[in-house]
Structure formats: C-alpha cells, structure tokens
C-alpha cells in the first residue's frame, strides 16, 4: 500500500469509530448495516473479484447465517458459538456449491448459484416447523461479550465494526499469502495455473467456501441487528445487491466492498427526498459508472491517480490492489 493509501485508510477507520457519536439512532442503524453488509461483500469479492467465480448466492448465505443464529440462540446456545456455527455451516455448504463451478463457468455458473438462492428461499419460506415461514423470527438478542452488553445501538455497532476489522485483517492476510496469488491466477488463466502445479479444483472450492462463510458470518450479525428476519430479506434481491456492491466498489480491489457497501446503503437514503425516483436514479448512476468505468469506483480512483502522479513507482508485488479489470 502506498503511504497515501495508508493515510486514507487510517482516516476512514477514525471516521468509522467516531461516526456513531454524531449520529441519531437511525444513522447508527445504517452504518451498522454497512458494516454487516461489507462483511458479506468482502466474501463475494473474494469469490468473484479475486478468484473469478461469479456467484448469485451470497444473499442466501447471509440468510443461512442469520437463521442459524436466530434458531440457535433461543435454545440457549451462546451467541459466539452460534456465530461460528453460522460461519462453519456456510463454509461447508459453500464448498459443496463450489462443485458446479468446477464444471461450468460465467453465466452458466451464475444460473446455478441463482437456482441455489431460490432453493434456500423456498426452504426458509416453506419449512415452517423450522423457520416459522413467512412470519419470520423476531427478537434475536444482542450478545454480551465479557460483561460488555451490546444491546444499545452504538455498542452493537462497535461489535459489528470489530468483527469487520478482524475479518478484514484475516482476508488481507490470506490475500497477501501465496493463496492470493493463486486466486488471481485462477481468475486470469486456470489452464496455465493448472500446468504450474496449482490444484485449481481445491482453490476454486476454497474460494467458494471462504466467500460463503463470510456471507454466513454477516448474516449472524444481521439477525441481532435487525431483530426480525424473514425469508424475503434473503431472496434474490439481496444477492443482486451484494453483487452490485462488489462491482460498483471495484471488483478485485481489497477496499472495493467497503466503498460499494457504503454507496449501496447510503445512496438510497440520500435519494429518498426524490421519493419514488430513487431507484431510477440509482440505476442510472450505476449504468453510467459501468459504461465509463467497469472496474468500479476504486478503478476510477486508480485511473485518476495515474493521471495525476503518473505510473506507480511502487513495486507491484502485492496482489491486493490489482483489480479484476473489465
């Protein structure tokens, strides 16, 4: 990372910590939503942006995670056990969902994962004995961590932010390890990667499994944040929305999901004054962005930086900031 980049990230972190002290409850709810959705988007960015495997199932994993926590905590299971159970369950299911990706790619894979999302939605809606169907589940409690109660909005926001920070660090660590390079190789040229000894099968499944487990962990925070979950929240719309966050932020950029999720959470609120037109304006803005800069907002920033300071002098050793390109 450049020094400039480090300064920007540092300032953003300070802003994220200071923000709840200046916001009303609804504002705190919005930034908590941002933190929770960013976790899911980071997972999708790993699967899609780095490893190049398109998935329209991330919303379903958020759902699986949310229901896992909402169903386990009333049984007396401590939140953090349920939280990890959600991650593990989604890791396993994501691994299985990765198998189709070994056979089909691109839009065919998109259809397979889309079917999976529909399947999960139907299970959540129809298996009333387990999920309470369309009536959903209310009142998932917010946890107490070593005596620290996170019931208040601000406290729960800090919990979400903390989880986001820890998971971001873990993913950053993974991407700077040889795995990050292997994922990019998988995206750019799987046949050549295979001939260089990369077990592309295992890396593909791993990319799916880890990406999905982040979806599950995001869902595990979503349930106590919103305190009401129902199947519709995790239907295709959420998967599309998460895909949009990754692409708008900049697919294959480490900080892409942070920016994409911020835009996806805040823009509809800011455009609320336009009443019924906000979706229209949002859609138009995204079409313009995609037409002029398919590598997303961070791609746009990168372009501007190159135009201003010329080509980077910094060694391109990191796989973290490469971007997937168009």
């Amino acid at each position: 990372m450049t020094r400039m980049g480090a300064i920007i990230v540092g300032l953003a972190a300070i802003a994220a910590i200071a923000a709840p002290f200046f916001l009303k409850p609804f504002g705190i709810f919005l930034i908590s939503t941002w933190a929770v959705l960013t976790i899911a988007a980071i997972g999708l960015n790993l699967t899609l942006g780095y490893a190049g495997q398109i998935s329209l199932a991330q919303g379903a994993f958020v759902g699986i995670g949310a229901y896992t926590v909402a169903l386990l905590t009333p049984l007396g299971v401590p939140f953090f056990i349920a939280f990890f159970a959600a991650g593990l369950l989604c890791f396993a299911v994501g691994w299985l969902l990765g198998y189709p990706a070994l056979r089909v790619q691109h839009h065919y894979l998109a259809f397979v994962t889309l079917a999976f999302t529909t399947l999960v939605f139907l299970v959540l809606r129809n298996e009333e004995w387990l999920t309470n169907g369309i009536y959903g589940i209310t009142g998932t409690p917010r946890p107490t961590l070593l005596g620290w109660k996170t019931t208040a909005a601000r406290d729960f926001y800090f919990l979400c932010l903390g989880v986001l920070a820890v998971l971001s660090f873990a993913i950053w660590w993974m991407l700077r390890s040889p795995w990050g390079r292997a994922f990019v190789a998988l995206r750019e040229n799987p046949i050549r990667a295979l001939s260089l000894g990369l077990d592309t099968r295992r890396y593909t499944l791993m990319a799916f499994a880890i990406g999905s487990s982040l979806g599950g962990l995001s869902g595990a925070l979503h349930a106590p944040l919103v305190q009401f979950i129902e199947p519709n929240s995790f239907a295709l719309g959420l998967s599309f929305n998460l895909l949009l966050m990754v692409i708008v932020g900049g697919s294959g950029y480490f900080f892409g999901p942070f920016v994409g999720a911020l835009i996806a959470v805040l823009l509809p609120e800011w455009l609320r004054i336009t009443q019924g037109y906000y979706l229209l304006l949002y859609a138009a803005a995204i079409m313009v962005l995609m037409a002029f800069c398919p590598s997303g907002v961070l791609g746009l920033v990168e372009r501007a930086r190159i135009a201003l300071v010329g080509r980077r002098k910094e060694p391109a050793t990191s796989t973290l900031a490469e971007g997937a390109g168009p």
Partner: protein
Amino acid sequence: MTSVLAVSDLRKTFGGITAVDSVSFEVRDGEILGIIGPNGSGKSTLFNCVLGQLRPTAGEVRIDGKPTTGMRPCDLNRLGVSRTFQLLQVFPQLSVRDNLILAGQEHQGSMASRLFGRSDAGLGGAAEKMIEFFRLSHLADEQAGSLSYGQQKLLDAAMAFMAGPRLVLLDEPAGGVNLTMLGSLRERLQAYHAERKATFVVIEHQMEFVMALCTRVLVLAEGRIIAEGAPHDIRRNPLVIEAYLGH
C-alpha cells in the same frame, strides 16, 4: 541410458478423426528433443495427452518409469514436468516477479503452510535469479501484460523453469518472436540446459531454431512419426520434405 519420458502406442481420437495415431517414443535424460511436423500433424495434441490436459484414447505415458497416463496437469507438474503453451500464457495482471513466484509456489510446502507462511513462499531469491537469468531485471515489477510479446515469451519460458523441473515441454517457443529475441531465447534455453542438465522436448516450426537447439528430431505427419534422427539427417530426409511440401 535412462528415459525420462516414455510414450507407448499413444492414440487420441476426436470423433472420427485420429489426431495422434499409435505414437511411441522415448526422451533420454539430458537431451533436447525436437518434434516437428506440418500444421495439424498432432504435435500439440500429443503434448496435451502427455501432460494430462487431454486424456489419451489409448496408450501409455511414463515419467521416469512411473505410469502417469491420465494424471492431472497439476500433479504431473509437481512430479517435475513443466510446460509452455503455443499461445502466450502469462498472468497479465500480476507483476513479472509474481508470475515467477506463482510458478514455483505450489512446490513449496502444503496448502496450509503456504497460507501462514511467507508472502513470497520463500521464492523471492529464486525469482530474482530467474529474472536475471532471462534478463528481465528492468521489468521485474511491471505487470506482465504490459510487456512486449517477445518479453512475455521469455517470461513464459522462465515460468516453466521456476520449479526446477526435470522435464520441460516447450510448445512453439519461437512462434511470433522476432529474430533478435529468437536468438536470445535460444541462447537462454541452451544456457539453462547446460547449467541444470534439464531435459527438453520442443515443438517448433522454425527450422533454424530446431536445428540449432535440438540434439535429436522427431517428425510427425498425420498423427504418426515418419522420421527420427539427428537434425542434419532430418533436413535431407525425402519423407520429411514430402510431408512439408505436400502431396
């Protein structure tokens, strides 16, 4: 003499077309074997069958005496068999250095140890040496996609050598490379061969390149081996001349 690679009665059919027809040959330790033949004579299909990209219809492949027919390319690579492709195959968004580290990292430790180990998988020094060896030092930190075609060809070859392979199969290394670059590519391949005692199999159209580089040449036409011998004999072989000039 031991044979590094032994191919026996290898056949590959696509529907009704027989691309490789009962081909048998051996590659001896330390030699540079050239495989030539007109377009469509089955050279690349033969490579792909040997390297696990395609499953042969019949026949057997052995590496160092061990049967490897049908093994996955990644497992073959870890046995020390490496390759380049006919069309350029570098990772354009990674730097030259990262391309090289990638080419060696799967040979270091296990998947888990690579996750927690060093970012360069302990290959930084080896990559640096390879970059110097192929005279790419001034480009080490550039994205591979920004290099010229000839430079990418050099990188492509360097990647095949990164894991210190026992056997390297080069599919048209000279294709589309200009004469100056061709000279330096050949010279680097020869230098590597002399230094590491590696064994090469080279598919090539460029006759001068084959004649200068290879110690023995096989000629393939319509999926069969029609001639075999030292480069200067092959050049005068009437069967070979006919195969190239048509019927």
